[in-house]
């Protein structure tokens, strides 16, 4: 007798059911600044920003099956675009920042993408890493443009041409900017959800599962990978642009490959086999790292142990594990 386990594919969820958890989640996110203190709100804003980055990253890892070890580059391109727009153009409008970051990321990812999508697996990872290190070293060395290791400062931007952060910056970050980030986050999540749920998204998953077969249902693999690379980079770049005002400045640290490692870390922490995994992972990782740094000088050790234990025992990440437990609980 066949002992093959038949598993139900998890890809289809009716929009209604998705809304079933998305709406309460959004309500909580909207209400939170009224409940928790400013610091927690700002921290959550960081988490949401990284959520966007991880969401973009996961379009490649989770949906296209490409492990990039160079996404710090696109995060950095977004962040530095904003900083350079401030430095050279005197722009303060957040919307212009976002547009600028998107344009810059499209240009960079389009070029990098042409090179990278020719490869898969480890070579893809190394190539993305090498290219990101090129950008890192430029940011590091061309200090008269980029400020070198000091980085570039970015003042509080003007949101929607209305709200400025003059005066109490903390209050600005914890309210107006938080909601702005939340707004962009919701839009990004929706857009990404549409993309992965689109026929294009399905095509990416097909490429991930079986490159040859995908070609034989008429999908031009490299072109699709390139588009995915572009979208992925732009999302991460957008996150970089949102992150700069929150942080106040950008330094080459965010271009370094170890930051790419953190993006991979958070995505796997949440679970790269599900749509929400990277978001959850980014938020949790943000808390994890912040509190680890705050409470012990051995924060790297702590994070490393978490990562190794995670990969050893919970390869499906937080969301995957939760889903499994939930399914088991329901089955009883």
């Amino acid at each position, binding site marked *: 007798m066949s002992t093959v386990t038949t*598993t139900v594919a998890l890809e289809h969820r009716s929009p209604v059911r998705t809304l079933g958890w998305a709406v309460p989640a959004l309500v909580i996110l909207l209400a939170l600044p009224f409940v928790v203190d400013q610091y927690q709100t700002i921290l959550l804003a960081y988490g949401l920003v990284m959520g966007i980055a991880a969401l973009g990253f996961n379009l490649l890892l989770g949906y296209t099956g490409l492990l990039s070890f160079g996404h710090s580059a696109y995060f950095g391109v977004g962040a530095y675009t904003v900083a350079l727009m401030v430095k050279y153009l005197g722009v303060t409008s957040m919307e212009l920042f976002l547009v600028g970051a998107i344009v810059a990321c499209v240009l960079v990812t389009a070029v990098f993408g042409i090179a990278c999508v020719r490869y898969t697996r480890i070579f893809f990872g190394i190539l993305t890493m090498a290219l990101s290190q090129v950008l890192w070293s430029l940011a590091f060395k061309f200090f008269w443009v980029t400020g070198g290791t000091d980085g570039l400062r970015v003042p509080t931007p003007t949101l929607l041409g209305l709200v400025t952060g003059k005066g109490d910056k903390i209050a600005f970050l914890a309210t107006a900017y938080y909601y702005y980030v939340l707004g962009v986050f919701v839009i990004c999540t929706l857009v990404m959800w*549409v993309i992965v749920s689109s026929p294009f998204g399905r095509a990416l998953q097909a490429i991930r599962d*079986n490159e040859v077969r995908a070609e034989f249902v008429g999908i031009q693999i490299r072109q699709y990978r390139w588009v995915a690379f572009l979208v992925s980079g732009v999302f991460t770049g957008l996150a970089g642009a949102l992150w700069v005002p929150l942080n106040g400045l950008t330094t080459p640290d965010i271009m370094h490959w170890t930051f790419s490692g953190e993006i991979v870390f958070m995505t796997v922490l949440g679970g790269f086999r599900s749509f929400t995994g990277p978001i959850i992972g980014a938020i949790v990782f943000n808390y994890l790292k912040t509190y680890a740094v705050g409470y012990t000088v051995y924060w790297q050790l702590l994070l490393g142990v978490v990562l190794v234990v995670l990969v050893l025992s919970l390869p499906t990440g937080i969301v995957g594990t939760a889903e499994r437990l939930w399914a088991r609980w329901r089955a009883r």
Partner: protein
Amino acid sequence: MSASVPSPVLLETRKLLKQFGEFRAVDHVDFRVQEGEVLALIGSNGAGKTTLVNLISGLLRADAGQIIFRGADVTAQTVHQRIAAGIARSFQLVNLFDQLSALDNVALAIFSRQGKTRKLFSLADADRPVWDEAMAVLHLFRMESKARLSAGGLAQGERKLLDVAIAYALKPRLLFLDEPTSGVSTREKAPIMDTISSVVRSERISAAIIEHDMDVVFSYADRIVAMHQGTILADGTPDEIRRNERVLTTLIGTPETRG
């Protein structure tokens, strides 16, 4: 039988050549498929059957010769273009999207056929006609009960059928099936072939089946092409092939050796 009335030629190869080093896997082969026929490609291991299909479907590039499909030279075309022209195939070792559901596997082919996989901003799930069609395809292949299961978890026979269903969903004019029953148990063999055969015949799709199993070959094919060492050894109806001495000696074994 359709053999009496010559149908128009759908696909033709002219002096098609593929070499691997010194070895000529396909050696100047002239091969034809006519509209609406079900054809079987037979031959021993290494005879060049799969290589021929790989050349026509675009997985491999020909070293010389031409491939003419519906009057157009497709020799230099990409896989994508050939599929658009109407050439589809399945694989001997099943090739599925294991993490997607059976329904998704088929729907993907439909989306691709309709050019919708280029759309980033539309919900695949909301496209009812595609899902209805995908369900209909699964129904044709008697797999609608498996629609929601992930392809990776299906039984071997079901995977074989799904592989063909994906190719079928591309609405090809010409369908290559590379050993559709290999790897499945004897019991499942006939139902699978019945299903496939009824689908292609009812849709009047030309099909070329690579097959080892003589039962399958003789009961389902209109015409049989036998290959040997990269060339075509014989071409004819099942009855002709059954009586062909060369085929018998090289492929099935002569009465002498049986003794």
